[in-house]
């Protein structure tokens, strides 16, 4: 288990009788960005705060670069955190905010200011030092918060939904900046978000949490293409979940029947019988053998969205640009591109 910048061994948290986090193991390798992804209340922020030292784990061990920090206070751990609200000290100017951690660690004030100034340059805010946080835009405040955490050169940098207060456009450019910075400086980052697009865009690995436990961990591609559960599939982008029948399994390939359709997919541990099949909306092609009726049609510019009523329940289909429009109420057939469909492994499902 060792060798990671951060290692969690059976770390759990309960508040009285309420269980916030079931005991879990996690390793973050040096120089990587790992995202904790999940719906609100899944325990991702609790986990982050345990690592930060803002709360104490009720069980398990937290190792930072091999050293047990479970009982250490926040200030004694070599980690920094960027807060959702930025938490910039409103009574200190930008430079003093950034220098705060250095001064706390005993660096002389003059030197701390120099280093803070340099770090402000790194995040593109050179010359803003004398302003008060309230005199900056949201994006600039965000950068100050990052600079303030960066300047300490921590072993591990924590981000708690850092982009949720920004508008969509800014969010996209900020997340690219964070990813670029992380890769340029080789930072180890634990990043919390509930936005899967954000997670996909910046992560080396993603940990999906559900009800205080890890639902699945892996690279963005693994999670998207081989979700361990309908929940993970649904959380990693739009997905249609249907019940299908596995007719036969041979050499790891399953023969799957959905109504009149027949698909050959990796079995992923499924045996003959009922199974969950996840179908991405872009994998549904209109004009196939299985009957369906269009109940809603929406034109989105780059593509068109259709909600189909089928024998397997409503399905969402996305068709790229040029396709011929179908009006609501028209009967269409559909079939499925096997590349965009995946069987949910039975035993994994049990495990959950």
């Amino acid at each position, binding site marked *: 288990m060792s060798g990671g910048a951060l290692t969690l061994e059976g770390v759990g948290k309960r508040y009285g009788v309420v269980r916030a986090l079931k005991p879990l193991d996690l390793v973050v390798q040096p120089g990587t960005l790992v995202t904790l992804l999940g719906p609100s209340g899944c325990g991702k922020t609790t986990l982050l705060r345990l690592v930060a*030292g803002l709360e104490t784990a009720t069980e398990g061990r937290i190792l930072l670069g091999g050293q047990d920090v479970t009982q250490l*206070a926040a200030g004694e751990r070599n980690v*920094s*955190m960027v807060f959702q609200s930025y938490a910039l000290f409103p009574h200190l100017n930008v430079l003093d905010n950034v220098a*705060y951690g250095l001064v706390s660690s005993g660096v002389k004030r003059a030197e701390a200011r120099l280093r803070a100034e340099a770090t402000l340059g790194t995040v593109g805010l050179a010359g803003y030092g004398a302003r008060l946080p*309230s005199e900056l835009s949201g994006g600039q405040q965000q950068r100050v918060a990052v600079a303030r*955490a960066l300047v300490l050169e921590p072993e591990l940098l924590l981000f708690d939904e850092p982009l949720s207060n920004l508008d969509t456009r800014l969010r996209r450019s900020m997340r690219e900046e964070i990813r670029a910075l992380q890769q340029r400086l080789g930072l180890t980052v634990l990043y919390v978000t509930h936005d899967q697009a954000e997670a996909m865009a910046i992560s080396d690995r993603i940990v999906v949490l559900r009800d205080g436990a890890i639902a699945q961990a892996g690279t963005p591609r693994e999670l998207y293409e081989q979700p361990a559960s309908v929940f993970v599939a649904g959380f990693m982008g739009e997905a249609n979940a249907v019940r299908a029948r596995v007719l036969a399994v041979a050499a790891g390939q399953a023969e799957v029947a959905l109504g009149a359709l027949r698909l050959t997919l990796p079995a992923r541990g499924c045996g003959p019988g009922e199974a969950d099949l996840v179908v991405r909306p872009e994998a549904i092609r209109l004009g196939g053998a299985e009957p369906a009726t269009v109940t809603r049609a929406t034109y989105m510019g780059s593509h068109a969205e259709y909600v189909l009523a089928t024998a397997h329940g409503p399905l969402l289909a996305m068709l790229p640009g040029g396709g011929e429009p179908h009006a609501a109420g028209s009967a269409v057939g559909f079939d499925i591109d096997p590349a965009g469909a995946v069987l949910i492994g039975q035993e994994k499902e049990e495990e959950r």
Partner: protein
Amino acid sequence: MPRLSWPPPWPLLLAAAGLLLLPWHYPQDGFALVSVWGEDADATSALAQAARHGRFWFWPALAALALCAAWPRALAPAVLGLAAVLAQALAVGVQGWSAPWLEALFGALDDRQFGIGLGGACTTLGFLWLTTGALARRGAFRGDRFVAGGVGLLALLILLFTAWPVLRLLAEMAAPREGFTAWASLAERLLDRKLLSLACVVQPVGCGVLWNTLLLAACSATGATLLGLCFALLVTRTGLPGRRALRMLTVLPLITPPFVIGLGLILLFGRAGLVNQAAEALFGWELGRWIYGFDGVFLAQVFAFTPTAFLVLIGVVEGISPAMEEAATMLRATRMRAFTSVALPLMLPGIANAWLVAFVESLTDFGNPVVLGGSFGVLSTEIFFAVVGAQQEFGRAAVLASVMLVVALGAFALQRRVVARRSYVSLTGKGDAGLPPQLPAPVRRAAMAVALPWAGLTVIVYAMALAGAFVKVWGRDWTPTLEHFRRAFALEWSAGGLIFSGGAWHSLGTTLLLAGIAAPITAAMGLLAAWLLARQDFRGRTLLEFALMLTFAVPGTVMGVAYILTFNLPPLELTGTAVILLACFVFRNLPVGVRSGLAAMSQLDRSLDEAALTLRASSFRVLRTVVLPLLKPAIVTALVYAFVRAVTTVSAVIFLVSAEYEMATVFIINRVINGDYGVAIAYCAVLILLMVGAVGLIQLLVGQRRLGRRAAVPA
């Protein structure tokens, strides 16, 4: 193996200094460091007492210190040290062993010890912090030694200065009277007809003081709440000119020493007062002496507590979102209906809160009933006279005090429930676009009809009372004079320099010094407690909060009696010293510091502290560099309040003053009792001026928060 560390943790140094270098006991005659190894055993350090003077009961503490030095991070030696200090303090008193079984065990002891002094205090704190530090290292308090130390310190101080005295007083309730058992004495005191009689319902005689007190408190609270509501509505919801002046007027009673209102009322409404004389001269009416007794005390208390109710209610009235009433008017409600069906119900919990605050204030009021009560007795005056009057019965005082405590606690519990339910007051973070709606005309007229004459009356009462400082014999000879000021505050130049020859200088100096010392301690402890309660999570947090708030419900008289009972004997022998007065001020006013701290803290985003924590700041540094600068308004409130209360309080300190440490209010009440009103009022006037000055000075010293353009966080 012992783990020696260098430098040693500073609590260890503190404990060592206390045991080895500083005189252990409170100095009886003078204080000099050179005497810590001297011949006078009582002036020496614990080590010297043990080694040179045969006081073997110090050896366990010294041994614990050695163990702590060897294992400075371990829990057991530190706990041992605390226990050893406690044991020696309790085992040996002023007359040798303090319990017979100790004497049986160790043999007769021809020695005694005085109260704990500098050395003892340092050692106790040292061992305490070694203990909390060791606990924190074991993972308690999230491993934060500063938090652990803070909680330990607060718990110790509250135990010593609140819980212990109150319990000591309650124990006195059952002190046996001659010829009675303890239980019979208790029963007799509790079932006393003077306490519980209901005779006044059927006959024109006095009822038991409990019913007097409750009736008075209920009436005063109702009156003050109604008036406070009228003022609050007028100030926030009318275009009344002079609203600022009205606000100022309501602050005046807060900084007024007790008695001023009572004296002003006598001069105005007394039998020989202006109103009566005018009525008699003009109409031949004899209005009599109604001011003495229930009516007068009621009137004075309404004067005194209306500002308190107003200050509570103005927040409530301002907190009702205008959008609520606007919505109601959009739904075809008349302005009157919108007010009565929407605004008023929303204000109700706030009104109930104001009522309960005024109720408790009336319950604990001493100054007004003592000046205006006549035959009419309430609990606070009965307690006072039970102790100092001809009865000389601590037991009865203790029973009355505990009855008062129960009522106060009941009101306090009720208030907490009411305030907890207040959450539906519609104060949201969003900026409401609406303007505060104007009051419906009938309500406005009614409020004005009540409030404006009252405001006028307040001005007249103050003017009358303060006029007494500038005339020869108050109520008799109205020749203008500054004689009273000269008698109280004369200054003389002599060869030796300036001589403060006025009679009031001594008590004024003491009052300002002690209030000036107590205020920052109160504010610091209050804010520390608020920060611990709001931001830290530790076992016993709720208990600590309850204990802190409990002090608020302990009436001053009760506290004063409990203090002299408790702190006259070693180990804490504080009567006659300034420390007992300081402790009284600090612990009486602590809850207010905690409250203003908690209120301010709830408006500070928690992630600010957390951000600082993750930036390597220690908890102490977080408090100093982030929390405190952002809490400046709360600091000002706490400082001002602690200072003003320390200067104006009378009921608690009347038992605690001594020759060296006389307080201004006690000086004043002595003059009032002697009928020397001129000097008393001159003194009050000077105090009011000084307090206004002090409030300004505190504002200046603490300074403003600098937040840039978004400085909208309310105080």
